[in-house]
């Protein structure tokens, strides 16, 4: 496997929410794999690659095509990593084997050029959304996931579709701030992991946020430390987002045009 001499150290994407109803986004993803990801040493997918995932045995054409495309990328020498999102947390071992990707736990660290980068999906940072965090603690229990995985495909598909509708409904009623990250939770993560940069998705609020950490428990050398939180954007039929990591440990956040709406 030749992972040297690639100009990009790593690429980060999240929140593509791939689904058959948005073929333009799926096509943009395939183009991204072919034309950009192939030039990177590693591709990190930080969750919600899929709008819904009810099992690695999903036989639908789009998931099969995506799995094949990811497999091709990993076979061509790009290291592939995946962190679960709140939409595709049931992605498991079979997906990992079929695509050649490594499943990472949420809050994964990369050390590069003296900097520590913390990777997360981002849903755990939204700690103001108490009802979601409760649901998350229950639904992510391995035993429950294993039991759910044993249900017939039709039932799992149904559960996923209902869950998706329900989540959309309840999110419509939630205040704006609840849907964003909690500043204190973010700081805790930085301190806990001694991170310099955090990259996450989930909130669909792409941007870069400088944060001054002040020392409360003696965890930080000196009294303060400047860190940065980088938020990936969601992919729509108009626009996609990615972050690029260089050898020097610099991260660039970029958006690109996908499909400017209806056309001939």
């Amino acid at each position, binding site marked *: 496997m030749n992972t040297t001499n690639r100009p990009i150290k790593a690429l980060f994407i999240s929140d593509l929410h791939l689904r058959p*109803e948005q*073929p*333009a986004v799926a*096509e943009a993803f395939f183009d991204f794999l072919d034309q950009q990801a192939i030039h990177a040493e590693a591709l990190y997918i930080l969750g919600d690659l899929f709008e819904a995932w009810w099992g690695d045995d999903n036989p639908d054409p789009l998931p099969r095509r995506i799995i094949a495309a990811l497999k091709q990328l990993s076979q061509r020498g790009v290291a592939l990593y995946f962190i679960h999102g709140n939409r595709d947390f049931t992605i498991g071992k079979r997906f990992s084997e079929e695509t050649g990707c490594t499943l990472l736990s949420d809050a994964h660290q990369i050390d590069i050029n003296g900097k520590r980068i913390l990777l997360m999906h981002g849903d755990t940072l939204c700690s103001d959304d108490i009802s979601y965090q409760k649901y998350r603690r229950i639904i992510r229990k391995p035993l429950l996931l294993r039991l759910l995985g044993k249900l017939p495909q039709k039932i799992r598909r149904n559960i996923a579709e209902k869950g998706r509708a329900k989540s959309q409904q309840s999110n419509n009623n939630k205040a704006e701030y609840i849907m964003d990250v909690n500043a204190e939770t973010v700081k805790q993560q930085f301190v806990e992991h001694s991170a310099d940069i955090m990259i996450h998705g989930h909130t669909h609020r792409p941007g870069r946020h400088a944060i001054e950490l002040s020392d409360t428990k003696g965890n930080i050398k000196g009294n303060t430390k400047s860190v940065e939180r980088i938020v990936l954007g969601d992919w729509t*039929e*108009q*626009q996609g987002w990615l972050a690029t990591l260089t050898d020097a440990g610099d991260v660039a956040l970029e958006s690109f*045009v*996908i*499909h*400017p*709406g*209806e*056309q*001939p």
Partner: protein
Amino acid sequence: MADNMITLHTNYGEIVIELDFDKAPMSSANFLQYCRDGFYTGTIFHRVIDGFMVQGGGMLSDMSEKESRGPIENEADNGLKNEIGTLAMARTQDPHSASSQFFINVADNVFLNHTDKNPQGWGYAVFAKVVEGMDAVNEIKEVPTGSAGPHQDVPDNDVTIDAVTISEAYADR
């Protein structure tokens, strides 16, 4: 002027069109309904490419997209060709995704015609033709364009549909 027509009153003049209810019944009915609802009034021709087509019917002058009705079925397999002066429905990569946006062909665009019932070959459904006012269309196709946000080929100065009139012959459609 013939009497079974729809007239788009643009700031470049009138474009009179005739719907083909026989060959494109769903697209024609869909277009007529948008006209009746006054939907097109205030929309712009937001994508203008000389030698290809001029597209409008869905964006406002600030390049925001107007909320349309749901998508319609693609009738591109009706035998009508994307020839100069014909109107066809714009759409996303999904063949059956047209709603309000349409385009006027200003070239014979053979590659937009239906060849096969798959996403690559579906083509773009022709449903009407310009019967008067090609001079206005020809003026529009030549306006200077640039990019606006993610959109390319956007006229520098708005090309607007200020009003739409429907002849009585369409009253019972």
